[in-house]
């Protein structure tokens, strides 16, 4: 066996967490540096992973398999394919930049970093494991620390409420995921939780697929978040500290889409066919309704939260088209939206650190005093509204192409969101950053050079993957082709 | 009459039902205890009658009956002690007054 790179990606953050726990709480800088080094190594590993993944071979690579619980057919089965490699990279990027973004946090640094990195570990696990048991474990590990992270380090008086709602809705969803996984296990009757095995030899009747898909759809839909269960997301974003919002919107929401693409669709293609219309209808709500609701928000993070709802709707919309382009678009949208939201939240955070308010109506003319923060928000906004050259454009283009082809009317309706998104983003930029500076904010310092580093990294990622989407899309396509083959010629 | 099984079972059933009613509605703890004794007696009757009917030669029913009686004694002892303790605190032995723990 070669160097176990996947386990290293999992273990290094874990070791970081343990090291942090054994550091004295007073040594704040030590803790920060430990976190930075740990996540930095992970980031490098993930870059290495992305580079060294053999694109011509495709399929699952870097497999590691250890028999774990033999009587339940559970294996410690790690492996990445074209779908997971970019997401691993995304997560590594988000946590690495997240650590830097939260450098300013002074309160209970130790716990904060421990929880933050623990959260990222869970996400890594979800993206890398191929065993449903471990999937379930990591899935909730990724959700769990959110409560404390938001409730302790969050902002606003609603933060506890938001944290509770977030945690509970996500657990509510995961209850369905768990039930689905178990029922899948039973229905397959192979006494294995390995996704690979199940993919290879499990047979499900159409009714069973439909039922199971519904379970997964409810479960993953609540984290994506799909329309009626989306309300946790804007509130959660709004109250969370920047780094947490980044990880949360940037990576955590992707778990839902990833779960659908990883488990539900390859195993239950018939189920998708049954529920595609419902999924499409809900995603329409997400896309259009989310965008319109974002207009009415006064809190910038709320606005970004609703924009996330809108954009994640595109993931669902892409999936519901059941075409290669749609799935590509959905997968790419997950990746691209991750970077954009990370940028959104980190740039809002860079401003919020100084102003301590995010109310659009309170702010104004921030660009005069904090040109850097303003610049990065503008870049994020431009990327978010689908400006060509940035990664999200590619994703939206593919989703819309597939959408217009499959559901012409609804596809066109969903394009309205492009205008609406432009409206609220630009309106926000105008009202927050442009105009005369409120004397209240006069003299606040801009983001420092160090603060800018993570932002620059994210912008670079946005540009690189926007200009050369093939870097990621080729990887994603390795897997989406298989999915489409499973779905059959539609 | 005395040689058919059912009257015995009916008697035991009546005793148990009466005991249960008493336990459910009488507020005096001692009377509740008395009712539990009635239930236990009903059980014993049932057990012995069935034993007599299905397994005449078997002493098991009797042995169990003995144990039940002994258990009842032990139980009464502890229950009375606890009732006594309650009385010391509450100055009465009303089951409905024991409601400091609730919710």
């Amino acid at each position, binding site marked *: 066996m070669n160097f176990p790179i996947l386990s290293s990606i999992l273990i290094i953050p874990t070791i970081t967490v343990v090291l942090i726990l054994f550091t004295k709480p007073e040594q704040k800088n030590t803790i920060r540096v430990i976190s930075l080094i740990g996540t930095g190594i992970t980031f490098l590993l993930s870059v290495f992973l992305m580079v060294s993944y053999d694109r011509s071979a495709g399929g699952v690579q870097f497999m590691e398999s250890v028999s*774990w*619980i033999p*009587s*339940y057919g559970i294996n410690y089965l790690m492996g990445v394919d074209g779908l997971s490699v970019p997401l691993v990279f995304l997560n590594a990027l988000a946590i690495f930049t997240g650590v830097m973004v939260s450098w300013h946090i002074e309160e209970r640094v130790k716990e904060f970093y421990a929880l933050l990195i623990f959260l990222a570990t869970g996400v890594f696990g979800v993206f890398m494991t191929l065993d449903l048991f471990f999937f*379930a*474990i*990591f899935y909730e590990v990724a959700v*769990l620390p959110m409560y*404390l992270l938001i*409730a*302790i380090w969050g902002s606003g008086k609603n933060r*506890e409420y938001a944290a*509770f709602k977030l*945690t*509970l809705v996500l*657990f*509510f969803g*995961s*209850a369905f995921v*768990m*039930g689905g996984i*178990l029922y899948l*296990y*039973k229905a397959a009757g192979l006494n294995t939780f390995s996704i690979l095995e199940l993919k290879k030899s499990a047979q499900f009747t159409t009714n069973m697929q439909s039922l199971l898909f519904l*379970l997964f759809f409810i479960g993953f839909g609540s984290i994506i978040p799909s329309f009626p269960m989306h309300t946790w997301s804007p509130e959660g974003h709004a109250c969370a500290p920047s780094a947490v919002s980044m990880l949360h919107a940037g990576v955590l929401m992707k778990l839902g889409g990833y779960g659908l693409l990883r488990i539900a669709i390859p195993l239950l293609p018939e189920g998708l066919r049954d529920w595609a219309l419902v999924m499409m209808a809900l995603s329409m709500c997400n896309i259009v309704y989310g965008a319109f609701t974002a207009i009415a928000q006064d809190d910038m993070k709320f606005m970004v939260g609703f924009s996330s709802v809108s954009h994640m709707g595109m993931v669902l919309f892409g999936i519901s088209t059941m075409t290669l382009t749609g799935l590509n678009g959905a997968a790419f949208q997950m990746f691209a939206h991750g970077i954009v939201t990370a940028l959104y939240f980190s740039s809002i955070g860079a401003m919020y650190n100084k102003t301590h308010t995010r109310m659009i109506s309170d702010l104004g003319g921030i660009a005069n005093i904090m040109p850097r923060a303003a610049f990065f928000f503008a870049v994020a906004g431009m990327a978010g509204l689908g400006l060509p050259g940035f990664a999200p454009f590619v994703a939206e283009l593919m989703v819309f192409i597939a959408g217009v082809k499959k559901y012409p009317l609804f596809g066109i309706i969903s394009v309205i969101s492009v205008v609406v998104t432009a409206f609220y983003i630009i309106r926000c930029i105008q009202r927050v950053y442009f105009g005369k500076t409120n004397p209240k904010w006069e003299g606040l310092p801009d983001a420092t050079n160090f603060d800018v580093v993570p932002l620059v990294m994210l912008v670079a990622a946005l540009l690189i993957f926007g200009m050369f989407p093939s870097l990621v899309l080729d990887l994603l396509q390795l897997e989406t082709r298989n999915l489409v083959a499973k779905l059959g010629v539609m | 009459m005395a040689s058919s099984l059912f009257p015995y079972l009916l008697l035991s059933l009546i005793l148990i039902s009466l*005991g*249960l009613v008493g*336990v459910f509605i009488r507020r005096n*703890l001692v009377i509740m205890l008395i009712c*539990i004794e009635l*239930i*236990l007696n*009903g*059980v014993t009757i049932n*057990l012995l009658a*069935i*034993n007599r009917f*299905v*397994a005449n030669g*078997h002493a*098991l029913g009797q042995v169990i009956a003995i*144990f*039940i009686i002994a*258990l009842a004694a*032990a139980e009464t002892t*502890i*229950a009375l*002690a*606890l*009732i006594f*303790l*309650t009385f*010391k*605190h*509450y100055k009465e032995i009303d089951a409905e007054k*024991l409601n*400091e*723990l*609730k*919710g």
Partner: protein
Amino acid sequence: MIFSLLPEIFCFLMSLVFIIFSLKKQDINFERKAGLILSFINIVLVLLTINHQGLYFSEGYKIDLFSQSVKLLIAIGLFFVFFMADERSESAIKKSYPEFLFFLTSANLGMFMMASAVEFVTLFLSLELSSYSMFVLSGFLKNKKVSAEAGVKYIFIGAVASAISLYGYSLIFGYYVDSSLLSMKFNSITVTKDVMLYIGFIFFLSAFLFKLAVLPFAFWAPDVYQGSDTTVTTYIATVSKVAAVAVLLRIFIYFIPIFESMEKVMLVVAVMTMTLGNVLAVQQKDIKRLLAYSSIAQAGYMMVGIIMMNYKGAAATLFYVFSYLFMNYTVFLVADQIIKEKGDSSIEALRGLSQRSPLLALAMLLALLSLGGVPPFVGFTGKWFIFTSAIDKGYLGLVLIAFLNSVISVYYYLLVARQAYLFEPIDKEPVKTNLFVNLYSYAAIIFIIAAGFYPTLMLSWTEKAIKLLLM
């Protein structure tokens, strides 16, 4: 033979030693140390006999890995509980310290025998032995009103439950004039779908359901947990549940044909239990009361595994009980530190614990989350196994309800955890603890995570035990 029975014999002797202590008042520290040493020897003895097998006392007493594993847990629980009763305990306990230890030990003896008994009378009487000891224990705080109230409630509900249970047995008696579970096990295949038998078994179960605090006999739990001393509560909540689960596992597995016909009924009961526990726990302000409701809910989960009546379900349940003991004990231990310090068992008393004593707070947090079934902690893994066995029988709805229930439970567990983590403490003084508490906390943290992530060792143990039980 004698050697296999050493734990029971030792336990008996131990209780006698405490009676002797009670005759002449000793120094409390001496008594405590003696108790700890003795209970530790108890654990060692169980460990020594862990692989013993045999059928004793006219086939009425079975020693196998299953019974010995349960005994090990019970012995460990006793040791833990002894540790909790220290010099900071209530004055009533300190005044009658040897007696207190005596009752714990006698209850323990009863549970030991419950774990091994395969004969009805032995089983029932050992259950009563442990119950009666605990009736006394729950009323032990003589200077407290609530303690007496708890004792009265406990004993009356217990007495009714056991009387009904006896009535049920007397109905079963009409079919099997035998008290050996082993021989009944082989007879039970003949008659199954009979109303009287069904009623008999339902009634018969009530004493055990009472012990496990499952509906219909679950209502005592909150009041008794709240009213009793924390030590006693811990004992009731952890050790006595272990014993009850062991007994129920045995009964269900021995009477599979009968219980299969009422599987769905029992599942309804289990679901009602967990829902009731969770729904009521949400609004609790008192940590002990909250834990009582939570343990009702937990009992509901365990019932699911028990009702499955197969190898996987039983092994999973045993696994869950194993982990449950440690999780629940951890929470109680931490709560006990606070209650002893402040004399206040409300959740608010935990304010700022994470700053006063990060270790305790972390241990409690993990234990709570584990109880709530959050991965990667052991509680999740146990639940996963239980629900896997349930889904094997096709109960998807049940599993969904159970998972949703655990979502509710996460809510109220977080309500507790948030006091510890979110708020500033009133006084920043670290919580006074002793070495044991600290060591235990570390051990619990490691156990909860390690066993959750790598449950294989423990699972294979429980599977082996269940294999022997099924034999």
